[in-house]
Each structure stands twice: as structure tokens, then as C-alpha cells.
């Protein structure tokens, strides 16, 4: 027991102290939490805090559950509808380019179809946490293109939830088309039931949660509900992450939603750090050599596709070169969602190169993304002016 506690406490502390170094120079925390896992894990010399990732697995699962629960809780369809078709359009353009490009790249790697699907998601979906932090840190909340960027992330959030729901049965190792159809059907039935509860039953769920005056009991009950449904979802093959996301969606409709949003934050922050740390534990730096080239190609691909998406979305909204550059380089950040997908792949027993691949990829883009975003004004020069110029209409004098 003592050993396990030392491991857990050490994991928190190592992750926190390392990330503190990073935040001093304005870098996001997620890559540092993961790096702490690599450095203090069994695959590197020096102090080994945790020998077996399995020791912390339960805590890591709770971290994943809290991450997705919070995502569901914060998710607001209203926000997006209010933003109008332009925001949704921008999000779809971004996903088509990046997830599509990621899928082509994944298939080209030749590791297999399920592997390609995981890589498509890991390469295609930006980190909401990192992008939001970049916008706040760089003081760009009042920029005209910021709304576009936030719209893209919201669309990515929805996509992630749907993608996880579809991916789990595919990765679940169904034998034959019939069985995987059955699994997908069961997953969607489960989601449908939860959606129906979110839509029609929020009042009863709210009553079940209890009074807002008793924050202690409210916390205990919503944590219990979330973890229980997540576990149930996992058992029927939907994945704990989606179960937690759906509970978040349901609780978002209750009158206690705002309070729960506040109460869940410390839980999410603490356990998500363990999730990233545990992911780091499984990464052997020695195994990074063979995947260095694929990662380099993936990073280059992401850079090109992000700038392309930035240009297209800016054109759609009549923005200039500078805004296009801001969009492209800000949504470059990769983090929690890529790591969640990689942990799915590990759980499903897919090609074990995916772990190191995503780890290195996230490390580069989580650290490089904010750096590039802060230089986006200067980087705007790489975008040829003419791609953003509106062609003069017939009869209109060229400017």
C-alpha cells in the first residue's frame, strides 16, 4: 500500500513540478504531464516512481472519465447554433482536411485500418485545452478570427465524441461484419437512451442529484453517477469515455450545471494529470527511433493542412493573410484528444507503434504549436497574398 501511495503521490508531484517549469515560459501543461511519466517510468534510467502502469490504471481511467465528463458538461449546442452556419462550415472544412489527410496518411503507413482510423483522429483533432490557453495567453480574445477558431474547436469536440462512439466497436475486435454491426447498433441504442434522458429527463436527474446547498453531497453523487455510467458503458462496449461524455451532456441540462462545472474542475485537473502521466509511463524513448520519420511527416502534413484550413476558412469569412495565419497556427496544438485516442488503441491491443507515435507527435505539436502561434504574425508571410485575394468580379476594376 505504501509503495502504491508513493507512486501515486510521486506521479502528481513530478507532473506538477515539471509542468510548472513549462508554464513559466508559457507552455501548456499536458506535454509536461506526459513527459513526467516518461522520465519517471520504467523505460528510462533514474528514479522509477511507477514500475507497472497498471498500478495507477484506475486513477488514470477516472482522469479520462473526468475529462470527457467536463467536455460534455461544457458542451453547448446553443453556442454553435448561435454562431451560425459559418462557424459550422469552418469546422467541417477543418475536419475534412485534417482528419481526411490523417486517414490517408494512416493508410499509407500500412499499419492496418483500425490503426489508420486512430491516427486520423489523433492527427486531425486539435486540443481544446491548448488552443483556448493560447488564445488567452496571446491576448487574442478580441481578434476578429478568434470566434472562428473557437467555432472550429466546438465542432471538433462534437466530432471527437461521435468518433469515439464509432471507433470503440470497430476497435473492439468484433469477428465478422454481423457482430460489429450488432456492437455499433447496441452502442447507438445506448447513446440514444442517454440522449433521450438529456432531452426529456433532465428535471428528474436534477432532482436525483439533490440540492445545490449541499456541495459535499452533490459532488459525491455526481461523481458516483458519472463513474457508474462510464463503467456500464465500457461493459457494453461503448467505452467509458463516451459514457462519461453523455452523463456530462445530461447534467448540463440540469439546474445544478453551473455549480457542477465548478466542482468538477479540481477533480478533472488532478486525475487528468495522472491520465497523461500514466500514458507517458508506457512510452519507451528507445522505441521512438523507428517512428521518428512517420512523426516528422505527420507534423509536416499537419502544418500544411492547418495553414490550408486557415486560408480557406479566412477566405470564407473575408479575412486577410494575418487572420489566416492566426487561425492556422493557433489550432495546431495537439494534446488531450490525441492521447485519448492513443490510449484507446493501446486498450484495444492495436499496433504498439501507435503509442510512441502519438506521444512524440503530441510532444512536438503541443510545445511547437503555441510557439508558432505566438509568431503567427511573422509567419503570415509564408502565405502567398494571392490565395486570399478575392478575384475582382466582372466589370469591377482591379484594386
Amino acid at each position, binding site marked *: 500500500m505504501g509503495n502504491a501511495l508513493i507512486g501515486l503521490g510521486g506521479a502528481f508531484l513530478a507532473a506538477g513540478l515539471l509542468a510548472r517549469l513549462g508554464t513559466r515560459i508559457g507552455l501548456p501543461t499536458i506535454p509536461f504531464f506526459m513527459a513526467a511519466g516518461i522520465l519517471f517510468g520504467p523505460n528510462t534510467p533514474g528514479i522509477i516512481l511507477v514500475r507497472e502502469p497498471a498500478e495507477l490504471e484506475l486513477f488514470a481511467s477516472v482522469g479520462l472519465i473526468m475529462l470527457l465528463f467536463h467536455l460534455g458538461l461544457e458542451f*453547448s449546442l446553443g453556442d454553435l447554433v448561435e454562431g451560425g452556419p459559418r462557424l459550422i462550415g469552418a469546422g467541417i472544412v477543418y475536419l475534412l482536411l485534417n482528419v481526411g489527410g490523417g486517414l490517408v496518411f494512416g493508410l499509407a503507413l500500412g499499419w492496418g485500418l483500425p490503426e489508420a482510423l486512430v491516427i486520423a483522429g489523433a492527427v486531425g483533432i486539435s486540443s481544446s485545452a491548448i488552443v483556448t490557453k493560447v488564445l488567452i495567453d496571446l*491576448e487574442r*480574445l*478580441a481578434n476578429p478570427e*478568434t*470566434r472562428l477558431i473557437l*467555432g472550429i474547436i*466546438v465542432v471538433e469536440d462534437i466530432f471527437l465524441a461521435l468518433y469515439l462512439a464509432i471507433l470503440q466497436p470497430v476497435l473492439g475486435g468484433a469477428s465478422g461484419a454481423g457482430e460489429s454491426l450488432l456492437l455499433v447498433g447496441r452502442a447507438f441504442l445506448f447513446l440514444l437512451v442517454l440522449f433521450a434522458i438529456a432531452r426529456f429527463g433532465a428535471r428528474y436527474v436534477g432532482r436525483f442529484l439533490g440540492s445545490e446547498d449541499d456541495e459535499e453531497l452533490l459532488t459525491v453523487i455526481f461523481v458516483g453517477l458519472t463513474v457508474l455510467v462510464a463503467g456500464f458503458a465500457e461493459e457494453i462496449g461503448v467505452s467509458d469515455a463516451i459514457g462519461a461524455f453523455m452523463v456530462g451532456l445530461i447534467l448540463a441540462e440540469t439546474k445544478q450545471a453551473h455549480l457542477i462545472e465548478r466542482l468538477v474542475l479540481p477533480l478533472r485537473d488532478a486525475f487528468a494529470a495522472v491520465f497523461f502521466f500514466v500514458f507517458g509511463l508506457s512510452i519507451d524513448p528507445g522505441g521512438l527511433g523507428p517512428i521518428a520519420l512517420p512523426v516528422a511527416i505527420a507534423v509536416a502534413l499537419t502544418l500544411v493542412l492547418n495553414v490550408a484550413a486557415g486560408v480557406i476558412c479566412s477566405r470564407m469569412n473575408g479575412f486577410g493573410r494575418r487572420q489566416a495565419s492566426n487561425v492556422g497556427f493557433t489550432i495546431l496544438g495537439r494534446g488531450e484528444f490525441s492521447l485519448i485516442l492513443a490510449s484507446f488503441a493501446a486498450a484495444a491491443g492495436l499496433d504498439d507503434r501507435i503509442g510512441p507515435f502519438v506521444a512524440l507527435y503530441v510532444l512536438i505539436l503541443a510545445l511547437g504549436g503555441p510557439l508558432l502561434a505566438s509568431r503567427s504574425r511573422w509567419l503570415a508571410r509564408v502565405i502567398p497574398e494571392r490565395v486570399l485575394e478575392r478575384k475582382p468580379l466582372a466589370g469591377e476594376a482591379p484594386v
Partner: protein
Amino acid sequence: MSVHEQDLPGIGRKFEILVGKGDRIDVVIHHSGRRDLYVFERGAEDPSTVVKLTDDQARRLGAVLSGAYFKPAVVEEIEGLIGEFAVDWITLTDESPATGKTLAELQARKRTGMSVISIIRTGATIKAPDPDEVLRSGDRLVYVGPQRHLDGFLSYMLG
């Protein structure tokens, strides 16, 4: 001056306020309650300054701007000095025992411990009232004195 409101998905809401000759102040209200003020000079793409406020600070700033919060330092000083003293006013009515009497007759300080320091009468303020001043219904008497004598003073003057 025009205010343009926009929502920032996942962050909160933004209010663009055009002031003066093309200068702009953008206020971002985060869901967390935090407020950011972005000040843009005319034609500038980058804000010339960004101020980050907590919910509490923002409310205070808002109150100051709206004029509701203004509290000159001098008043705070006096409040600090006075401590357990009460400074307030009462308004006399036809029924008040003090109505129709002079301050000299009343001898409020001697009998109750509270002093009447000025009289506010429609159209005029009598700052250091003469002892022979006859109090009228509708007069507002500004008084000062130890808090513990307040009840006695009120019943003596107002009944």
C-alpha cells in the same frame, strides 16, 4: 457610442464598444466570471492594452464607472475616526415633539448626548444653526454622537 455583442463559444461573450473617434474597447466576459478589457486605438489590429479583472474587481470597476461606488477618501477617513459614532439625519414631522421648539429649548446634547450640527431646510442649509432657530416640520436635522445614545435621541426628538 455603439455596443456590439457576440458570443465566444466555450469562453463566454464579447462586447465591442466603440468610443470616441474610432477607438474601441472590447469587453470579454468569461464563463468563469473573469473579465478582460481589450483597448484598441483607432485602426490598430493589436490592442494597445489588455486589462484582466476578477469578477469582484470587474463589479467594483463597473460601479465606479457608473458613479454608484464613488466614495471620497475623506469620507472613509471620517468613518474610521468616528468608529462607534453615528452620523445621520432625522426628518421632523408635525407630530415630532421637537417641532416648533428652538435648539436652546431642546438642549439635545445635554439631555441625550447627541448634537444637532446642521439643519437642512427646503432651499437652504443651515450649517451651524443658531440656538434660537425654531425647528419646523419637514426640517432634516443632521446629528452626530455616540451610537449608544441614538435610541434616546430619536425618541426625544421624534416621539
